[in-house]
């Protein structure tokens, strides 16, 4: 068995953002289903939220590579 424990750290750091992104897009889909005309506005907000949530996973990726 060989590898790097830092990769596990990345796996752990991806859990939170995974759940968060799921929640964000669930809310987005709900919103669009209720008010299809608000799609354009909701989309940019959802993508912004997605970017914020994903930042954590990206930091996990960074650290996975840093602690080699």
């Amino acid at each position, binding site marked *: 068995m060989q590898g790097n424990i830092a990769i596990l750290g990345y796996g752990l750091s991806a859990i939170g953002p995974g759940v968060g992104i799921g929640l964000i897009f669930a809310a987005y889909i709900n919103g669009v289903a209720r008010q299809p005309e608000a799609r354009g*506005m909701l989309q940019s907000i959802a993508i912004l939220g997605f970017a914020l949530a994903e930042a954590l996973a990206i*930091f996990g990726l*960074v650290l996975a590579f840093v602690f080699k």
Partner: protein
Amino acid sequence: MSFSPLAAVKTESFEPPNPQEFYQRFFGHGDWSFTRPMVLFLVVGVVVCTFLVMTTRKAAIVPSKGQWLTEQVYAPIRNGIAQDIIGTKEFLKYVPLLFAVFCTLLLSNLMSVIPFFQFPPTGRVAFPIALTLFVYVIYQAIAFKRKGVVGYLKSLIPPGLPMWIRPMILVLEIITYFITRPVTLALRLFGNMFAGHMLLLLFITGGEFMLLHQDGFQYKIFGIGSFLMAVLMTLFEILIEFLQAYIFTLLAATYIADSIATEH
């Protein structure tokens, strides 16, 4: 493209693709070598410029086929991203940047699945960083020019917060605006392209290894399954490539809009 299958033949043991393979130099050494992603990025630049200039040189009211295609890409960037997010008043100034970013990224990402190129320059972190630097410098310059240093820092704090929490929020916001945003902007794109390409390499080299270098019926089945998975992942990759180019452009527009906006 990758040297690992050849290595696998020699050693008769499977070597999964690794990040080292993304460094493919043509000449020169170390940090100053001329590499394959640079050639691909140059191809992207030449193709993007040539195509866009060719199709818009005689821009007409009734578009030709090429102009129509360009406008199909241009209109969502101009109206869907720039106008909606930056606002109708001054979005036109930033349309060239956003359009250039989107076109460059789209073609760079698609290089991952275009035959004979089959490597995304955006899978090398230098290129996402280069594009992010442009966006970063531009949005910070706008913010400092418009608000001044103090005004910029003040605008980072949401109004109506109690006094004692403001320094903490300020630190967090500064980290967000000056570090998190550019880093995630660059690394999101890089991470997606890098991981996607790695995944394709893994399925293809793994399938090849199981089909050709392993005896036993079950390995043939798995090899075929691995190739089928590679096809599926290629289709998925195309989707991701479009999506990442779009998200990068959208976030760049959002950051620029944040710098223009007077309040938080």
